């Protein structure tokens, strides 16, 4: 509710325009560089990167091992790196453990593998309740976990950025790595959803 978007409010739009114009005049920024950054995060860096990492980990046991041991390097093998990706850590969901990632203090998120965070991840509702009532938050996403499953919440308070490796769903044994990558969702890599097998 409070994390509304002022699409119809000229206030921030006018202020950003003023700021960009002023900084351009002073030679502190280059509008073309701004365009390039926008393009990067709108079209190139996003959860498809993370999905490829997860699919490879599902297919390739040696890669999974490297990913769990040093995610920064394992992710770099696929060509993904950049800001907010200097210290990546992968945490794996199993039958016994469910991982969930939050940043209670701001909005830390593993950009190179998931892109920029969605509004719900930055929302006050998520930031406040994910640590104190993770099971309730998961229910907001329609995910009810059995009591026997251990919930591990990772609060990204420092420079470590977490990627959840969701469980590979049953009935996907015959799928290729590319096909698997296509079913891995952003939400499953933050830990608020499971990956579902495609209905055939």
């Amino acid at each position, binding site marked *: 509710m409070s994390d509304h978007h002022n699409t119809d409010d000229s206030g921030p739009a006018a202020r*950003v325009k003023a700021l*960009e114009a002023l900084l351009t005049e002073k030679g502190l920024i280059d509008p073309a560089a701004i365009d390039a950054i926008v393009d990067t995060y709108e079209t190139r860096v996003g959860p498809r990167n993370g999905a490829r990492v997860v699919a490879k980990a599902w297919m390739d046991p040696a890669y999974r091992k490297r990913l769990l041991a040093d995610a920064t390097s394992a992710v770099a093998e696929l060509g993904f790196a950049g800001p907010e990706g200097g*210290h990546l850590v992968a945490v794996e969901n199993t039958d016994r453990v469910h991982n969930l990632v939050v940043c209670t203090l701001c909005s830390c998120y593993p950009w190179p593998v998931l*892109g920029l965070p969605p509004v719900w991840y930055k929302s006050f509702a998520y930031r406040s309740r994910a640590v*104190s009532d993770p099971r309730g938050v998961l229910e907001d996403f329609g995910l009810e976990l059995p009591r026997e499953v251990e919930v591990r919440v990772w*609060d990204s308070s420092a420079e470590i950025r977490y990627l959840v490796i969701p469980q590979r769903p049953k009935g996907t044994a015959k799928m290729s790595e590319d096909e698997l990558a296509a079913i891995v969702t952003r939400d499953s890599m933050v830990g608020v959803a499971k990956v579902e097998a495609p209905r055939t």
Partner: protein
Amino acid sequence: MLVVASESAIIATVNGVHDMGGMDGFGAVVPEKNEPVFHADWERRMYALATSVMGAAQVNIDEFRHAIERIPPARYLASSYYERWLAAAEMLLVERGVVTREELLAKQDASIDPAWIANAVANRGPAPIKEKSGSKPPRARFSKGDRVRARNLNPAGHTRLPRYVRGKAGVIARDWGVFVFPDTNAHHAGTKPQHCYSVSFDARELWGKSANASSRDRVLIDLWEDYLEPIAAKSTARSIKKRKK
């Protein structure tokens, strides 16, 4: 609103409304279907502006985070995510002297409500102190499995030690190595490099037994060494001493 620090009021923002872990009343989490990366063109520009201009203005990441925390609480909660980035960027660029308030206002559309253009409370934190030179590479005080307690620290200024873990007992799960210390770095008071650990807390230690949690559930949070103290003979000695009083 152009949030610009006034010279006089230097107020801490530890325990600000941004430190919302464990708070209540914000309602349900509502995901948006097929959410775009940005919701308006100004959000696009703001994101890219912030990430590119901070270097030029010599603003470090801790400082930028702290600037967001310095937005007055009511405004913080009433603002959208990129509005907070915008407020922080304006604040820092004006404080650095990169641009002036007047220049910014002159560029803006005359239709903006002048009431929004007001000075806000400054929450700058402590004045910078000089970094000690010639310090040795820090050794780790704790190792995996050590029981630790998050200190009850309420420093003036930026910190990454949230309220909800302070005073609580946990276990070192992993040593992430040496990182710059945000509490000083945000105020240009030195990088104070030190070990940062993944510390595991039982959910019930944090939220009490009434929590809607199983006994296995836990929260892992990354905490710098200065945030931690060992739980050992010391702690027991203290409680015995207190009882003797």
